[in-house]
C-alpha cells in the first residue's frame, strides 16, 4: 500500500514537472485541467485508462478535455453490430472504438468535445459535473436554453440532446465523461448510428436514440475552443485552481509510462469486437442467381466475436452437401468479420472442385454471408 501510494505520487509529479509553464507545485493536491493534443480516439481513451489506473485522486480532481477525428464509440457492454453501420464505417474510414465505461453509442468528430471528470471513488458525482457544464454554457451565452435531465443528458430547447454521459468506477477512482455537440456532422452521425443488420438477438446494452442538435445551430458564433475554454474556466473557479490548461501528448511514454500498451490494447480486435456479449443472428436473405431467386436462411451464435455455431439453410443440392458442410465447418470458430470470411472462403475455394458453375455459386453465397457481418 505504502509503496503504491509513493509510486503514484512520483508519476504525477513527473507529469507536472514535464509540463511547461506550470511552475513547481509543492503540494500534490489541487485540481488539474489537461487537454490532449491528439485527435486519435484510441490514444485519448488510453489516457483515460492511464489516469484511472495510475493517478492518486484522493486529494485532487482532474478534468480532461479531448476531441477526436471521426469515430464511433460504443459502450463497454454493447454490440457494435446492433449499434452502428459497420459497413459504412469501413467504407468511410471511420474508426470504431469500445470504451471502458458503460452507456450507449456515440459519434465523435472534431465538432464534438469530450469532457472527463476524474475523482476518487467516494467523490463520484455526475449531476454536479453536468451542472457545471450547464453553468459554463449559460455564462458564455446566457440566452441558451440548456438543462440536465435525470438521465444525465443535457438538452437544448427542452428537446434536443447535445450531450450524453457515461461513467467508470474502479476500486479507488472513478470517472464520468460526457460529449458536447458543438458543430458535428449530423448527417454522418445519423447514418453511421443506424444498424442495417437484421435478426440480432442480444443482451447487450442497447442505445436509446435521440434527436440531436449542434450548439452551433443555435448560435453560429460558437466554436469548440470557446466551449472548452468556458468549461475549463468554470471548473477552475469551482475547484479553486488555476485556469490553466496543461497540454498532454498521449504518445509520450516518459510522462505516461505504459500508455502505448494501453493504446494498442484498445485497438485490438479482441477488445473492440471480441468483448461483445454473446449474441445470435437469425436471418434470411435472397440471392439472385442466373434466372432464379433463392431463399437462404442463416442461424449463427457468436461468442467473443467468433462464430460458435453456424447453420446455413440452402435450397437442396444448390451446392453439393460436402462443399456446404466444408464451408460451415470452416466458419465455425472463425471471427465474425467480413475480411476474415472473405479471405477464408477465397482460400478454401482453391481446394474445392474446379467447376466454374460451382465456384460462382460459392462466391455468391460467401459474398452474401459477409454482408451479414
Amino acid at each position, binding site marked *: 500500500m505504502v509503496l503504491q501510494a509513493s509510486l503514484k505520487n512520483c508519476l504525477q509529479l513527473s507529469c507536472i514537472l514535464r509540463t511547461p509553464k506550470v511552475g513547481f507545485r509543492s503540494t500534490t493536491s489541487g485540481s488539474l485541467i489537461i487537454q490532449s493534443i491528439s485527435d486519435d480516439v484510441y490514444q485519448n481513451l488510453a489516457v483515460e485508462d492511464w489516469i484511472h489506473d495510475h493517478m492518486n485522486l484522493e486529494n485532487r480532481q482532474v478534468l480532461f478535455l479531448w476531441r477526436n477525428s471521426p469515430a464511433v464509440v460504443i459502450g463497454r457492454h454493447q454490440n457494435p453490430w446492433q449499434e452502428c453501420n459497420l459497413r459504412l464505417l469501413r467504407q468511410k474510414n471511420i474508426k470504431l472504438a469500445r470504451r471502458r465505461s458503460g452507456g450507449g453509442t456515440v459519434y465523435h468528430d472534431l465538432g464534438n468535445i469530450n469532457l472527463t471528470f476524474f475523482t476518487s471513488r467516494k467523490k*463520484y458525482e455526475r449531476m454536479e459535473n453536468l451542472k457545471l457544464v450547464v453553468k459554463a454554457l449559460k455564462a458564455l451565452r446566457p440566452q441558451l436554453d440548456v438543462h440536465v435531465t435525470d438521465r444525465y443528458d443535457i438538452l437544448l430547447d427542452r428537446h434536443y440532446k447535445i450531450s450524453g454521459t457515461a461513467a467508470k468506477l474502479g476500486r479507488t477512482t472513478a470517472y464520468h465523461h460526457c460529449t458536447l455537440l458543438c458543430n458535428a456532422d449530423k448527417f454522418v452521425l445519423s447514418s453511421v448510428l443506424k444498424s442495417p443488420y437484421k435478426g440480432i438477438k442480444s443482451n447487450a446494452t442497447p442505445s436509446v436514440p435521440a434527436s440531436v442538435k449542434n450548439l452551433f445551430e443555435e448560435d453560429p458564433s460558437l466554436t469548440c475552443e470557446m466551449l472548452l475554454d468556458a468549461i475549463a474556466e468554470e471548473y477552475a473557479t469551482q475547484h479553486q485552481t488555476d485556469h490553466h490548461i496543461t497540454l498532454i501528448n498521449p504518445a509520450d511514454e516518459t510522462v505516461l509510462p505504459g500508455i502505448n500498451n494501453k493504446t494498442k490494447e484498445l485497438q485490438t480486435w479482441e477488445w473492440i469486437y471480441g468483448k461483445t456479449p454473446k449474441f445470435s443472428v437469425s436471418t434470411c436473405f435472397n440471392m439472385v442467381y442466373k434466372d432464379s431467386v433463392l431463399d437462404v436462411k442463416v442461424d449463427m451464435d457468436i461468442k467473443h466475436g467468433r462464430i460458435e455455431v453456424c447453420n446455413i439453410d440452402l435450397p437442396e443440392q444448390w451446392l453439393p452437401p460436402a462443399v456446404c458442410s466444408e464451408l460451415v465447418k470452416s466458419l465455425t470458430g472463425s471471427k465474425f468479420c467480413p475480411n476474415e470470411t472473405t479471405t477464408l472462403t477465397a482460400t478454401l475455394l482453391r481446394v474445392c472442385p474446379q467447376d466454374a458453375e460451382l465456384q460462382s455459386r460459392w462466391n455468391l453465397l460467401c459474398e452474401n454471408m459477409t454482408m451479414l457481418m
Partner: protein
Amino acid sequence: VCIHRVRSCSGIRFIKSKYVCVFDKSALKFSLQQRLLRTSAVSCGQIVQFKLSDIGEGITEVTVKEWYIKEGDSVSQFDSICEVQSDKASVTITSRYDGIIRKLHYNLDEIAYVGKPLVDIEIDASKGVSPEEDVVETPPMSHEEHTHQEIKGHKTLATPAVRRLAMENNIKLSEVVGTGKDNRILKEDILNYLAKQTGAILPPSPKAEIIPPLPKSEAVPAAPKDRARKIPVPVSRPIVFSGKDKTEPITGFHKAMVKTMSAALKIPHFGYCDEIDLTHLVQLREELKPLAQIRGVKLSFMPFFIKAASLGLLQYPILNASLDESCQNVTYKASHNIGVAMDTEQGLIVPNVKNVQVCSVFEIASELNRLQSLGSAGQLGTNDLSGGTFTLSNIGTIGGTYAKPVILPPEVAIGALGKIQVLPRFNGKGEVFKAQIMNVSWSADHRIIDGATMARFSNLWKSYLENPASMLLDLK
C-alpha cells in the same frame, strides 16, 4: 460443517488435478504428501460471503455483465471479480479477500443487489476476516501497471499464507520464481524451491540446469597483479525459465490455409532459379515513375514483372493451366489472372490482376495500387481474391535472394522474386560494372511441366526484363 468439508475436499481435488498434470509421475508421491499438508491447512477455511458494496448515487441494483473469475479460481485481494453496470456506469468489483471462489451468486445479465452476497470466498482460517490486510499487492487494474512497477522496483506478489510459509523456511521471496498469474508466487513454487534446496524428492529435470556456471578461470580477467580487487565468484544456480506454453485452436483463415497448403503438398514441385540483370529496367522505371505519378499511380517493378510473365505465358501456355483432381485433364486458362502475394496483418493473401494479357503496364500498375490499398485496409473482395491462374511473390521487398515457393492450387507454377542487389558483374568486354541483380526462384508442377519448359519460359521472361525495349516488339 459436513457439507463445508466435502466442498473443500472437492475444491482441493480440483486444484490438485491441475498440479499433477504439470509434473511427471515420479512427482505424484510428493504431491500426495502435499495433499495431506493442504488438507490440514484448508479444511479449516472459512466461507465468507462477499457482499456487493455501495456503488454510490443511491444505486441499489446493478446488472452483472462479465465475470472475470469462475468457481474454484484462486483470487487475491484487489483482483477483479466482475464487471457490473448500472445506468451508464460500468463498475469493476474487486475482491476484498485472498481465497478461493466457491460460489457465484448471479449469472450473466442477472440483477445483483447492493448489500447482498455477490460471491462466496473461502479464505484461510488463520487470517480472519479483517478488511485491513497487510498484503503488499497492487490493485491489478491493468497488466501494464504490473509490468511498470516491476521495472521500477522489485515487487513480489504473494498471499500472506505463502509469505508465512517462506518465512518459516527462511526463504527469500525474491529468490523464488513465481508461476502464478502475473508471476505471483504460489505455495507450489515455495515447495519447489525447498525441494531443490534439499535435492531430495523431485527428480532432477535436465532443463533446470540449462547453462552450467562459468569456470573460475574464465570469470577472472587476465590481471594477476591486481590481487587487491576481489572478484565475485559466480554462484552455481540453475537457470529456471518460468514461461508457459500457450495452446490455441487454429481457426478461420489459418484453418483454410492449412487445408490449401496440405493440398499443395500433393503436387510434385520442382524448382528452377536464375539471376536477372535489372540495370536497364531500373533506369527505365526511374524515367517512367514521374509520368505515372502525374496520372496518380505509384509505379513499382511489379507491373513490369507481371506483364513480362504474361508475354511469356503466351508462348508457354502450359504454365497458365490447371490439372483436374483425377489428373486426367489439363485446362489451359485463357485469361492470365496473375496473383500477387501480399503480406497483411492477417497473413499471406493473394489478390490477382485480371486479364493481364490485355492490360498495359500502366493499367497493371493502377490495378495493383487499388489492390494494395484494399489489402492494407482489410477490404479485398471475393472477386479480387479468386480466379488466379499464375502467381508471383515479391518476397524481396522483405528480404532474401533465393526461395522455394509453394504452388497455390489449382495453379501449376509460381515465382518468388528476391531483393535487388547491386553486385559487380562482367560485361561483354570483360570489364567489371555495377549491375542491379535480382534472383528468381520458380516452382512448377512436375506432373505436367518439365524442366525445359520452365527454363525456356524463365529465359524469355528474363530477356524481356534485361532488355525492356524488346517487350515493345511483342506487346499486344
